């Protein structure tokens, strides 16, 4: 595709990033554009950034470790949009299995099944399919780890310690929120009684 214009390269990259809904490797972008050199891809990405990374956009184009780019919804719109998107990606059960793996990784599949029950196997299959977990065979069982994709979503480097810390801090935030709610409710009751 040496003859293809920069505009066409930009469009192809945009097409792949839009449809993939995941971080895409530079290699894949080179393949879809039939280009052997990175420089044209890099300049096409800068062009796309001009379109998306402006203040007036709900979508952003981010570059991630490991030569990957990701077209995603800006964080501040997640909560807002969630109510209108009919099918969340994972059920609550699957998300709990994911957080278990993330917290205890690297962890044997059999241990996940003991802790999370029989349906854990189905959850794990789905999580692998969607690219959030990867499995490595070891004897009779499998060792599970979360992937870079999850680290990206949590906004931390892909390293078990950092991921655990991120989860712990989320847990603390959640507890604080719940505590605040209870206190507020108690205060309200007290005020009522005092009236």
């Amino acid at each position, binding site marked *: 595709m040496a003859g293809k214009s920069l505009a066409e390269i930009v469009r192809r990259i945009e097409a792949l990033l*839009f449809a993939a809904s995941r971080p895409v490797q530079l290699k894949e972008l080179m393949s879809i554009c039939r280009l052997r050199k990175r420089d044209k891809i890099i300049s096409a990405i800068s062009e796309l950034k001009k379109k998306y990374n402006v203040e007036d956009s709900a979508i952003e184009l981010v570059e991630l470790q490991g030569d990957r780019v990701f077209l995603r919804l800006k964080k501040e719109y997640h909560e807002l949009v969630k109510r209108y998107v009919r099918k969340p990606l994972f059920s609550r059960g699957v*998300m709990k299995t994911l957080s278990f793996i993330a917290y205890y990784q690297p962890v044997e599949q059999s241990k996940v099944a003991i802790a999370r029950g029989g349906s854990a196997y189905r959850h794990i299959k789905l999580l692998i399919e969607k690219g959030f977990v990867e499995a490595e065979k070891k004897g009779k069982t499998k060792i599970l780890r979360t992937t870079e994709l999850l680290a990206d979503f949590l906004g931390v480097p892909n390293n078990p310690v950092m991921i655990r810390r991120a989860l712990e801090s989320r847990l603390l935030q959640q507890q604080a929120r719940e505590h605040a709610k209870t206190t507020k409710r108690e205060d309200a009751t007290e005020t009522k009684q005092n009236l």
Partner: protein
Amino acid sequence: MAEKTVAIWSDHRWRVLFDVARLDRLKVWEIRLVEILRTLIKELEKLGVIDLNPCGVALYSASIIHRMKSERLLKADLPSQPREKITMPPLPPIDIPIQPEVVLFTLQDVLKSLSRILYEENVKTSFVEHPQENFMLNIEEYLVKLEEKVEEFVKTLQDLFHQKKNDEIDFRELVSCVDRLEAVRRFILLLLAAARGYVEILQDEETGEIKVKWIGGKELSGDSS
């Protein structure tokens, strides 16, 4: 005396000692041999009789179980530890931000699944009727189109005869490599071409083969360039 001890043979507490045939299927680490033997001896003492037959069987089973335990120990087959319990802090479910799920398919994909339904699977479709199509035929438009098609076809025939440098070809050549519908279409156009005097259609009485002969005159050798 034997009747008194029958109850002992069949009591589930000591079954493991009297069901000799099952010995090799036992999970030996789960048998509390000393406890079982003690209760058995107490029971026998209560009866106040000594029946050597069940005592012998029990002794034999006990010794086998004991031996099995010793052998397993040598093989380092230690009794399994109770499963390690994983104490889990109340982790929040990880909420994955929304990812769009773009559905992609093309006409080709629709055709593939349609041909599977129509030709490969025995799908019950006889009850599904196509709604009446609003079929408004415009005769004039139809005739104009037909004339155009005949003209096109005659031109193709002319080129074909010219290429072959022969004024007769086999009808089969005209319909090789096309589906049934296209073959029918070509046959009808051929009849129309014959009616307009461009070709003659001849059938060999013996073989039944159909030959098409160009009789369009000058056009064949003439001006196809």
